[in-house]
């Protein structure tokens, strides 16, 4: 599957380019964060990498081949929550795998315990708190043990404690050997969690470097502005 290579990938809505010639190579290790202002095209890029959208121009390949049949999972910004129990919402992800019921049960419960929802497995998913819902969604993506996990703004509307909980689960998944790609516009989170950063602005990749280097020596003028302009703003609203 790795490296995933995008070469001149374009995606347009009408005649407006949303992704404007993306060249990018994603390796199989660590946590990569897609950083950039709202509307930069981060989520769209995720959908291309997950194979859920096909670029209008340019090309994308997964280690030189087409989209793999399995091994890529994505957690969405607004996760789908069925009117069913927490357990059923996670077990759902195993449905296409045709596993035995006992295995489904065992794997689901194991993941639920690891995200701290083991005791709530029979509760209604839609009645969970915001942080619990995100952990449930993480569990659903994790239960299939993907090689690549895409997380779209997993902590966008969470308080610091809940954000902390999600981040520690993400680290745990990485430790298990999954490659993680996530979008955020939270600079603090990007700094805390990522190994490298892809900075995107106006449908273009402006920079792709190691995290420490990105924050110390941003190369592109857009990244400099973003770090300077956004950092105090972020801190004010997301302590």
């Amino acid at each position, binding site marked *: 599957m790795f490296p995933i290579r995008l070469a001149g990938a374009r995606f347009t809505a009408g005649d407006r380019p949303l992704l404007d010639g993306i060249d990018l190579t994603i390796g199989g290790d660590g946590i990569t964060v897609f950083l950039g202002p709202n509307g930069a095209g981060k989520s769209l890029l995720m959908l291309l990498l997950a194979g859920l959208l096909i670029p209008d121009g340019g090309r994308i390949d997964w280690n030189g081949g087409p989209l793999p049949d399995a091994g890529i999972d994505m957690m969405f910004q607004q996760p789908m929550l*069925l009117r*069913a129990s927490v357990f*059923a919402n996670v*077990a*759902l992800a195993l*449905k296409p795998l045709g596993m035995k*019921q006992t295995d489904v049960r065992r794997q689901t419960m194991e993941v639920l315990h690891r995200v701290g929802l083991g005791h709530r497995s029979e509760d209604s998913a839609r009645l969970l708190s915001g942080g619990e819902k995100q952990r449930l969604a993480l569990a659903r993506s994790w239960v299939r043990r993907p090689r690549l996990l895409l997380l779209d703004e997993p902590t966008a509307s969470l308080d610091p404690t809940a954000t902390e909980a999600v981040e520690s689960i993400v680290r745990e998944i990485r430790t298990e050997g999954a490659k993680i790609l996530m979008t955020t516009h939270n600079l603090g989170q990007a700094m805390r969690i990522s190994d490298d950063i892809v900075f995107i602005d106006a449908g273009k990749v402006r920079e792709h470097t190691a995290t420490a280097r990105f924050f110390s020596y941003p190369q592109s003028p857009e990244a400099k502005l973003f770090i300077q302009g956004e950092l105090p703003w972020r801190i004010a609203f997301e302590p």
Partner: protein
Amino acid sequence: MANRFRTLTLTFTLVASLLLASTAARAEEFITLASTTSTDQSGLFGFILPKFEAQSGVKVKVVALGTGQALDTGRRGDADVVLVHDRPAEDRFVAEGWGIERRDVMYNDFVIVGPKADPAKIKGTGDAVDAFRRIAAAPVDFVSRGDKSGTNAAELRFWKEAGVDPKAFKGYKEAGSGMGPTLNMSASLNAYTLADRGTWLSFKNRQDLEILVAGDKRLFNPYGVMLVNPAKHPHVKQEAGRKFIDWITSADGQSTIAAYKISGEQLFFPDANK
């Protein structure tokens, strides 16, 4: 979750088949009798059929329609026996080979009912054709069955004899339905209509209507029974059907018909053995 859904689908199917089974059970012998609203709604069948069913063990399922429809039902093979009242149509039915073994069963009579005030002045004429002529000449309404039933056919014969084209008569209304709805309509319009005595006697919503003309020989209304031709429709239950025809024309069947009364009045007069 997927399993629960499958369980639900299974439950639907199971409930459906159980319900179906419970309706399909009881494989007793039965015949389908296409007959007229006048015989069914007057309560005659409710009175005589239990006796036949007890004696023969054959259940009779009555589909009550207009005479024309009842004959059509027989023509399509959807009934085993037909019992109707429109002699010319019955003869045609037999002549075309749809029915066999036609027998006279009984007769009742038609009555002309209308508002008590009787604006057409037909009360006591005793002459049905004259009454029809007077109705057409008066500024009154007449409700016709208009459904190709035996009663409808008889009514049209009267108009013809009276030399009146009903379509040209302003107060003429075709109900396009059975005797009961036609009477309901006449009651609410305070109109005249031709009814069979049986339905009239068991009819409850009479309001201002009453019998104005009755007793004219031409108002007599004979019923005939016939078996749907097994040569045309091989599935016809001819043995059970014949049992029914034999019984209803037998002395026993005939006296049972004669014994049916509504408020002391005999509705049908057996005439199988005249």
